[in-house]
């Protein structure tokens, strides 16, 4: 008998008390918790996102489409970034005139090559206001999971309010489970030494978020 059969056999014998008529979807789960906490307008969700991102020590900036390239240029210059990783589907206009060397993420690039890059610039899939969370799903403007992990500086552009949801329950239906997801809430951190919080252990030590107002909202 395989170990699979042994374990499943043990599970079935252990559950002798469960009535035969009870199906896998029984007993019903009461989901009377809130879909979202409080009531906010889309603009208030964006404000809350900014507040919670900052509370977890991400640096938050706001921008319109027109201002974006100059903001990106300034933020990279402030960090002294000379090489910037970009995913293949990133809007090329964002980095126009940034005065940096763009490094495309290639499947063949090794972790050591990524380690030599100063910054990474990506978009995002969904942002969650209540928790201050950015979710990346590997879309063309976000790239592979490793590119937002190895460089020490991550600059992430969130289109607001389109990409912002209020809460975790509102985020999950907008995400595809078959894609690898990375949820990011502030920079890498540890509290393992006397519970003192220290930013930047293995992931980026600096997370900067640009809240990019859609042209509709900017009108």
């Amino acid at each position, binding site marked *: 008998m395989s*170990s699979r059969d042994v374990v499943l056999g043990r*599970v079935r014998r*252990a559950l002798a008390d469960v009535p035969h008529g009870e199906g896998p979807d*029984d*007993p019903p789960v*009461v989901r*009377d918790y809130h879909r979202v906490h409080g009531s906010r307008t889309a603009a208030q969700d964006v404000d809350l996102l900014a507040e919670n991102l900052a509370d977890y020590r991400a640096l938050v900036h706001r921008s319109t489409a027109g201002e974006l390239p100059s903001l990106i240029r300034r933020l990279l210059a402030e960090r002294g970034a000379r090489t910037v990783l970009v995913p293949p589907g990133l809007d090329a206009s964002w980095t126009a005139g940034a005065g940096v060397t763009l490094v495309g993420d290639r499947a063949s690039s090794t972790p050591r090559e990524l380690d030599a890059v100063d910054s990474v610039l990506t978009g995002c899939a969904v942002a969650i206001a209540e928790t201050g969370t950015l979710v990346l799903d590997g879309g063309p403007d976000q790239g592979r999971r490793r590119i937002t992990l190895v460089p020490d500086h991550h600059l992430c552009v969130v289109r607001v309010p389109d990409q912002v949801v209020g809460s975790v329950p509102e985020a999950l239906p907008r995400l595809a489970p078959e894609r690898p997801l990375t949820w990011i809430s502030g920079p890498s951190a540890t509290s393992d030494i006397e519970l003192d919080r220290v930013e930047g252990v293995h992931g980026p030590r600096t997370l900067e978020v640009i809240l990019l107002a859609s042209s509709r909202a900017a009108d």
Partner: protein
Amino acid sequence: MSGTYLGMPDFPRAAAAATRDTRLRANLTHATHTIRDKRAKAVAELDDWAQLRAAGAAVKDRTLRHLDHYLEQLEAAVVAAGGQVHWAVDADEANRIVTRLVRETGEREVVKVKSMATQEIGLNEALAEAGIRAYETDLAELIVQLGDDLPSHLLVPAIHRNRSEIRDIFRREMGSWGRPAPEGLSDSPAELAEAARLHLREKFLSAKVGISGANFMVAETGTLVVVESEGNGRMCLTLPETLISVVGIEKVVPRWQDLEVFLQLLPRSSTAERMNPYTSTWTGTTDGDGPRTFHLVLLDNGRTDTLADTVGRQALRCIRCSACLNVCPVYERAGGHAYGSPYPGPIGAILTPQLRGIEGALEASLPYASSLCGACYEVCPVAIDIPEVLLHLRERVVEGGPVTRRGARTVLQPAKGHAAERAAMRAAAWAFDHPGVLRAGARLAARTRRLHPRRLPGPGRAWSATRELPAVPAESFRDWWQRTRGTSSERQGGAK
């Protein structure tokens, strides 16, 4: 410490040693009080916490009641997404599977993200025997590994170490594992974290095999979830070519939607954050992103025995948040090592005896490692009634009864060491049923109190050896009540 929990003394003896360690107690008290206060604030932010908690418990209960169904569904989904699924009945089998999988890659080193399941089965030791070095990459686990120590907390395994101890360990040991600690390393947490970053980055960038656990597995999609803070998890999950995840069978949840409950309950309960810095989800393998080969090892190792106990089953709801440790007065004084397993604190006191059986001295002592104050139940995000299970297990220890061990029903004999306690409890029950006897006994005790030994003789010695015997008052409570509040017939003045 030798890096293994085997041969640990039973809880009372280990706790007696720990409570005399003033530095340990100071480190623990600071840490648990800090985190419990933060947790209370994080939970208070959500006005539907009670509903989330009930839903979390209900989802887990439903899963456990149909675990066979959900495991088969999970397996099919993982395989469909390009993963390979292995089943392990016990620790030995899980270690054999993982060792074989690592050997097949030809690699002799692996990077690990903190995993309770692999600690439970002693995977690092098993790999070492096979000539494979496993590097722990969580900062606290690194401290524990370099210090040849054992974890003492679910969430912050090096909670028993303070910054100067950590600096000493880094200075002394880092060089023999890889990149040495920087010259002149101070004990500031930022410098210590930086030293760990430099030390471990060497490993991450060259690692070909990663080993993880998982916080959740979604049956309908085959998705695994790892929740962490430092990014070492992301490193282990995405940079290596081969990923091996060892996960207890109780970690499955039915649906993608169920994550909305647990991703709210877990961070606030464990690190007291709205959300932990990093959560990674993956479903099998993805072309061009992350490991090319993914193995899931589903671990039983006593979980089905726990499932067979209709009272104790609820322990399998546990999402390893560690909130119960941080509120427990016994944990705060005894420390995590006293529990003799990777699962310390109140949850360990009910989980370890169920996973391993209560025949051993340590396991039989764990249900008593509690004051039954109920604080652990109050904070548990999936509402595990830990005091109920503790009492249930105490009854098993003292009275014996039907249990399931390695899948087989058997009848447990009462534990030998508890014969005197059993007799004393029966005598007490009889005395409480006979008020005259009780009254006479209490008066006798009061009048002979100067003659009482500080340690009990005979079969009571084991009981009193680990307890401070309370002084018997000069007057029994009944006599005091009669004297001060009693009716006139027995009132003898003095009170007014």
